[in-house]
Structures are given as C-alpha cells and as structure tokens.
C-alpha cells in the first residue's frame, strides 16, 4: 500500500528532523538563487526550481579539511579529522538527476582505496528523492538512461500528486526507517493522480554507441570544433552532480595549518600541468575531450556507469553556450 504525505506534513517532517539534530539539506532560496543548503525549518524548502549547485556537496563538500598539522615542541604532529563528528543527514527534495549522483560516485570513491570522507557522509545520510515535474529545454535525464521518476539513489522517493501531496515509496531500508520513525505524518491510501512530467527535447541516446564512437575517435575533428570556444572555466564541473575531480592543498604555515581537499575542474589549464611546464592536456580541446571521455567512456570502462545524470546544469551555466546534449546527439547520430 503506498504511503501518502501531504505537503504540510513534509514540511513538518523537516521540522522534526531538524529537532532531532539532523542536518537536513534541501533546496532553499539563498539570496537570489536556490541552493542545497541546511534547512532550519520546513518552510525553508523550495521545490520550484532546480538548485544551481547539485546535491553532491553534501557528500563531497566544495572544500573540506582532510587533516591538520602542528609543530609542537619542535615535533610535527598530524591530526586526523574526526569523521565521527559528521552529522546524520537527510537530503530532501532532490530530483532524480541529483539523488542519482551518489549511486554513481560511490564506485570511484570506494574502489580499492576508500575515501572515508565521502563514504562516512554517505553512510550517515538518507536521500529523499522527488520525482521531477519541472524541467526545461536543457534537461536530458531521459537521454542518459534516467527519468524524471527514476528512484536510483533515493532511499525514500516522493511522487508529487495533483492534489499537492506526495506518494512515498521507501526504496531502501534507510527510507523505510525514516518513514517508520515518523509514521504519524504518513497516511495510507491510493492518493490522487501523479502530476505529469515535462517532455524533454533530447531523445534517448544510445550510450553504448556513443561509447564505441568515443573509443574509436580519440582524435577527431569534432573535438577541435566543439571546444574551440571553451574559455576554460570550471562552472560546468563545479555544478555537475557527477564531476568528482578535486585538488589537495595545504593552507597555513610550515608549523601550523590544514590540508584541504576541494573541487577542481578538468577544464582548468593548470589541472594537469606538470611542475616542469609539460602539460599532457595542453590545449582546451584536449581538456574538453577529457571531460566528455571521462563521463561517457572512461568511467564506464572502470565502473560500468555513465558519469552524467542529464541535469542540464552545465548547459544552462556554460558562459559560451557549449551544449553537452547537442554534442551527444551529434555523436549519437554518426553513422559509423
């Protein structure tokens, strides 16, 4: 029997979770933009717009300390970050293109060496996804195999209904536990009809075919053409739910400071620059090629997944209008 939660009760749920001292993160109006931020009350939740940044930052912060060092009485001491202090978190109101990203990133963060900063946050968080009834002409989640109602990655999945309430499906045990702990906010019933989804402009892509083309066309005139205008900023990578590249830097003096891990982008000219001055990806189109290859070939080679959820953020944000969906369509339509 599906569970139903009214919008008011959803907001009440947030209030309760905040009271339980959980870190509740959801879309919230911050200045003039909607971002995933800690909600302090149910009324903070804004479900009108796709947040500018993806929800990956709950697991993979923009910038976080990974250790601190201090010289004490002449002896250097390195201190680990106490990851047990990471809060129990609930991500609420993430559409499938955001909720689905941890399911993709888990692979790279846990193969062989395990990034406990990411994984600990993952273990401590519950993801409440929500079916997407908005979307614009930049959206292409269907094209990369997701859908506005895809439950992948969500622990509890909400489907907006026409009467303003939500049908809930507890996808995982974490989701069930969340419902069970607040059972009085949910009611059983068939509920109203779901709100309709928005059509997407990009047709479903044949990702296998795209990957094959990428495999055979490391050198191709296409790369020169599409990245010709790329100005080399990191906007696409930083707001992407799936981009996971990072940099590690020390900040502080030689006696006292922290080492930080923070977002980095393959579009930056210095990303792969050797100290000697040699740069394997010395021009912008090689860097852009790496972006596409990483998402649609390399990641699949390594982990069997596509590193893209079709959220369309990079399309909306690109200063020069580079459209990854258009590039994929171009590749998809190639004959050989």
């Amino acid at each position, binding site marked *: 029997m599906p569970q139903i939660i009214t919008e008011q009760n959803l907001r009440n749920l947030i*209030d309760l979770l*905040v*009271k339980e*001292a959980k*870190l509740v993160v959801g879309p919230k109006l911050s200045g003039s933009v909607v971002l995933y*931020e*800690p909600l*302090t*009350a149910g009324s903070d939740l804004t479900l009108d717009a796709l947040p500018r940044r993806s929800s990956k*930052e*709950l697991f993979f*912060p*923009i*910038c*976080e*300390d990974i250790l601190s060092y201090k010289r004490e009485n002449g002896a250097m001491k390195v201190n680990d*970050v*106490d990851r047990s*202090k*990471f*809060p129990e978190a609930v991500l609420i109101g993430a559409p499938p293109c955001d909720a689905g990203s941890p399911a993709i990133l888990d692979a790279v963060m846990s193969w062989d060496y395990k990034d406990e900063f990411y994984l600990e946050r993952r273990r401590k968080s519950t993801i409440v996804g929500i079916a997407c009834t908005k979307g614009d002409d930049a959206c292409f989640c269907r094209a990369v195999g997701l859908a506005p109602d895809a439950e992948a990655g969500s622990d509890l999945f909400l489907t907006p209904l026409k009467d303003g309430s939500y049908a809930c499906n507890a996808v995982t045990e974490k989701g069930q536990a969340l419902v069970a702990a607040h059972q009085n906010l949910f009611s059983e019933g068939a509920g109203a009809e779901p709100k309709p989804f928005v059509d997407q402009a990009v047709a479903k892509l044949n990702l296998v075919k795209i990957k094959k083309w990428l495999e055979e066309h490391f050198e191709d005139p296409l790369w020169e053409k599409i990245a010709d205008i790329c100005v080399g900023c990191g906007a696409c990578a930083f707001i992407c739910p799936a981009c996971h590249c990072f940099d590690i830097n020390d900040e502080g003096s030689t006696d006292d400071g922290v080492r930080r891990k923070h977002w980095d982008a393959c579009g930056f000219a210095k990303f792969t620059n050797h100290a000697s001055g040699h740069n394997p990806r010395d021009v912008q189109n090689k860097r852009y090629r790496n972006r596409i290859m990483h998402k649609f070939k390399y990641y699949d080679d390594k982990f069997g997944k596509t590193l893209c959820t079709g959220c369309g953020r990079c399309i909306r944000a690109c200063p020069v209008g580079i459209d990854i969906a258009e590039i994929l369509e171009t590749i998809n339509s190639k004959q050989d």
Partner: protein
Amino acid sequence: MHVEVTKHDFEPKIVAFVCTWCTYAGADLAGTSRMQYPPNVRVLKFPCTGRIDPVFILRAFQKGADGVLVSGCHPGDCHYMAGNFHARRRFAAFRALLDFVGVDLNRLQFSWVSAAEGGKWVDVVTELTERVRTMGPMPEFKELEHEEQWSGAINTPELKEAYDSIG
C-alpha cells in the same frame, strides 16, 4: 629599566607597510632619537610604496591586523621618481573599494613620512593606534578566516543556532 606603561584592555595589532627610503628611515630616526611610540606597530619594509600591493593590506587584515598603515616618501621625493604617485592613485581607488564592501576606512591610514620626520612618524603611529584602540578589534576578516561553506563544516554555528532556537 622597565618603563611603566599604561595598561589597556585592548592592544590593537597595527601593521605598517613602509618604504625603505623615507618612512623606514623616519621610523629609525624616531628610534635613535629615543622618541616613544606605541609598540603595537609591526613595521614591514618595502623598496617603495609603489611595491605595496593592495593585496598585502587585505592579507594583513585577514591575518589579524586591527589597523594598517601605509607610508612612504612625500610626493616628489620618491627614490624611484614616481612610485608614490602611482601608489597614491592605487590606494585612492582601493579605499573606495574597501569602503564599498563595508570596511571601516578608519582602520587604514596612509601617510607621507620623510627620513627626517621622526616626530611625524610617532604622531601618525600614535594616532592610528589610539584610534583603532577605541574602535576595538577588527572582527570582519578574522571571522571570515574561520568560516566554512556549510558542506565543509562539520557542525556549523548557524545550524547550532538554528537547533537552539527551535529546541
């Protein structure tokens, strides 16, 4: 012998960026003439005020300065002919920028102190120190140093505050 000095509740940290040819010599003169001035000032010597990048001033505030003094040769006396003329324009612009983002300009002083003006150095330093003392510590940049984006903070103060207010 130890000179008895007045004890204050707050001793401001003042960073002085000075040019080596005029103001540094002026400060030296003040010292050799045994003039007294507040020990709050930390002097950093540069070849010329033209070398003093506005980012140094920012950095000083970020790292805990409560007041900053920039001082060099009088116009026309620059060892490098025009360094201080250029600096004058740059600092005029920088002041406007700092003001626009909400920094109190009373914490930032510019002055021309020549090698012969030990007394002026003492006046400038004393005045700035006392002014900043009455203003109290400069919290803005220092607070910023400890702030994190919410995702990188293990437990943000805002959250704590929120919990407290709800609880």
